[in-house]
């Protein structure tokens, strides 16, 4: 009943421990939220844990990562390309102004087609077969292949085009 005096609470030591813990947690969370994006120990830890988890699941599925080459992945491989640099490059070139691109900040344009599930497409812009090299060259100079296209040549560098192509070819599944 309402008489609260009978309620059990933490002991004195426990209360102190909880207080100190709460203060420490608060301080560290605030510090993390204030740190600049490049300085992200928590994020790094999360991605390490994520990678470890992925290795673990693959090992469990009987498909050790290091042993067998992954041919479907190899097909997508572009010279020195890093698909995780793709989204950054796409923000810089403004791809999102015209396309919906999953995983790219603010990319929800409706001028051109959505690029969700791009890896499953057969053709690029209905003109080139959807192969890594084709995609890279298309990104560098679309009007070269489709003179009437609305997609401009954006002075994309070879390296950026490779990164973006690698990223686009990692987008599978239904949009």
């Amino acid at each position, binding site marked *: 009943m309402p008489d609260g005096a009978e*309620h059990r609470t933490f002991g004195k030591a426990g209360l102190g421990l909880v207080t100190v813990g709460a203060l420490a947690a608060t301080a560290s969370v605030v510090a993390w939220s204030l740190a600049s994006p490049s300085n992200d120990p928590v994020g790094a830890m999360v991605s390490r844990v994520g990678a470890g988890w992925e290795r673990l699941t693959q090992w469990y599925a009987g498909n050790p990562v290091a042993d067998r080459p992954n041919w479907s992945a190899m097909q997508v491989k572009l010279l020195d390309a890093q698909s995780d640099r793709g989204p950054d490059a796409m923000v810089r070139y403004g791809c999102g102004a015209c396309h919906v691109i999953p995983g790219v900040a*603010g990319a929800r344009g409706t001028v051109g087609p959505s690029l969700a599930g791009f890896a499953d497409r057969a053709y690029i812009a209905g003109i080139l077969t959807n192969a890594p090299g084709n995609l890279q060259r298309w990104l560098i100079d679309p009007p070269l292949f489709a003179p009437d296209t609305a997609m401009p040549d954006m002075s994309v560098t070879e390296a950026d085009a490779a990164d973006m192509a690698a990223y686009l070819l990692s987008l599978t599944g239904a949009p």
Partner: protein
Amino acid sequence: MTDTSASDRPVQGPVLHDEMPEFEAAWATPPGWRILSSVSHRVVGQRFIVTGLVFFLIAGFLALLVRTQLIVPNNTFLDAETYNQVFTMHGTLMMFLFAIPILEGFAVYLLPLMLGARDLIFPRMGAFGYWCYLFGGIIVLSSFLFDAAPDGGWFMYTPLSTSQYTPGLSADFWLIGITFAEIASVTAAVEIIAAVLCTRAPGMSLTRMPIFAWYMLVTAFMIAIGFPPLIIGSILLEIERVAGLPFFDVTAGGDPLLWQHLFWLFGHPEVYIIFLPAAGMVATMLPTFVGKPLFGYGFAVAAVVTMGFISFGLWAHHMFATGLPTISLTLFSAASTMVAIPTGVQIFSFIFTLAQGRPRLTVPMLFILGFLFIFVIGGLTGVMLASVPFNWQAHDSYFVVAHLHYVLIGGMVFPLVGAFYYWSPHFTGRMMSERLGRWAFWLMFTGFHITFFLMHLTGLRGMPRRVATYPEGLGWDRLNLLSTLGSYILAAGVLVFVWDFLRHRMSGPLAPRDPWGAGTLEWLYPPIAPGHNFHAIPRVHSREPLWDQPELLREHAHLAEGVLRGASHGMRETVGCHPVTGEPLQIVRLPKPTWVPLWAAATIAVAAVATLASAYVIAGAALVAMLVCFALWAWEPSQTGETVDTGPEGVLPVNVADRLGHTHIATIGTLLVLAALYGSLLFSVLYLWNVHPDFTTIAGLADPLWAAVAGGLALVLIASSKVAAHKGPRLGLDVPVLLSAVATGAGLFVAMLQIDPRDTAVAATLWVMAGFVGVMLFVMAFWSLFLAVRKLFGQVAPHHRVPDLNRGSFGLATGVMVLIAVVVLLAPHIEGLS
């Protein structure tokens, strides 16, 4: 009082029914669906509370949508339009349809019980207010169905909210629905003023009044003066949207800042209107758990009174960035800091009350401690915001979002949830769960701080408010992520509370009599609500009668000694008291259940909806129907001149015709509201005239001759209505009042014809001023006609002087308003002013 010895323990058990069949029958709540016609404060109060809770949950859900949209940068969960609607409606529902009404609901429910009255003093007005609130709320919410939800922010700044930038109906839904719902707040305010001043138990002088009643009294006065500026602002804006009159249009000498002044003249006192009742709840609950009276009752009263005043002097601190002259900024900056003094006094009163005894850590107490913790932070950031340079950085940033939620959630929601735990036995006869209550508290407390503490930083890192999305990489991403996660924890806490509230109605343990050991009168009866208060109203000798008059709890509540035991002739009656001393003055006869308040509110709802649909004929017809409803409402005879034997207090007259009578005090309260409305209009005229000198000469001047004639007729109106009030009811005396009211209106109208309201903002505002006076004159004319008809039908006996007395005061005020209008119209004719 915590350590009541066995012999002092209250007698348990429910009220024995059929103890006084006549009394209980007179006060019976109508069964079944006819409960909708009930006007009992218990029913109306609970309706307010439950409806307010529903709006709270809807608004809280909208807040979660806002937080979810902001969880990551560039989120597309809501599009910009929906987001704007959601945050607008979140603020609107929380401020207008949750905070004020639910607190008024608690006041409506608790005040009569605390004060020793059998019902609120104007039960039909309470019911009417509730229906206005409900219909207004439904109109505002229904905008979602028409895809026309308001999206201009709860502050509706012009010119964004004018028809040029917000075409369609969305802003009209807001303006009409909210103004409608505000009728509820204002009627409840007048009613609370009259109830606190006029219906207290014998012996309850102002110094013995429960502190909650003091808080509500001041709050009610603040509502009466604080809401009118917004009502006027909304009316002006709606006229501009519908008829194109240029109140806020800079090309015609209007001013967007006029809206801001009117809005914040309401908006800042509003914060205290929300805080004060909640602080009153704290001041009521706290002594119970400490076992000692509130320390510094007098301090608190003085603090609340001064706070009520000072809070009207700070509105412009919401406008520091609008380019006001530096000297004005300093004035409002200094005034804003000063409000911290009465606030601090109250906080220290609460804190030192703790030091007087051994407090018990119950759930309500936990929420009070949470209130102290959170509100002090909110108050300190509030003082920071009073500093102009800091305000220039923090204004309209997330720092302000953090501050206002610390003040409003800490200052109002936490005490409110505590109040639910404290008073729930009243509503259900059962106790809410201590265990779930603790869960609710800790989840809300933790979630609240995670959500809102970080927002101080988000704001100083440059994030503005009211943005549907934000780019990544500006240092706001993680703070927003954490805030959103915190908001889910906060929501979980609220859900635990709501779950407990729903659950305990069925399965909570039965509550004993006076379950917390409180000292105030509302705990006299065992908390299985009998549907009526006080078989006999006990005389009180102190502020905590249940502590200091142990005989009250020693026997069954219905056997307690007191005045007016039982009912006379099946009427609902309560004791009316002297406003200051609390000594019995009269018997107040109260109405039985009736449908009229519902009809009256429904006619206004029809008028509002018809206006929205531009069906002005229907709107007009509905307003005529409304007048019929009010006439029905006031038709019955006033019963003045009868007497009732009260028992211990001797024979008292019924419904005295006296300045201190309850209807006259309510008339004065109503006139206060009307004066504030009129004052807001005068402020608008003066403001526009002062700020846009180039535009004041363009519009024509009023005809001086006819204006003077109207002024002269106003004097006749004052004289005739005063004579009628003095001489008592005679049919012949109503005629000059009626005629002079009509003639004054006609004279004023002719004088105004030379001014074209479409020319300039000042001209348009002058027309609204004249229109307002016209409405006052119409009320006088209608009232006189109505009284005359009543007299013709023999409804008024020679000693029924109350209506004429009240009309006399109303007539005086109307006449003075006409005279002020005439002065304003004649002033430009003086050389040099125009």
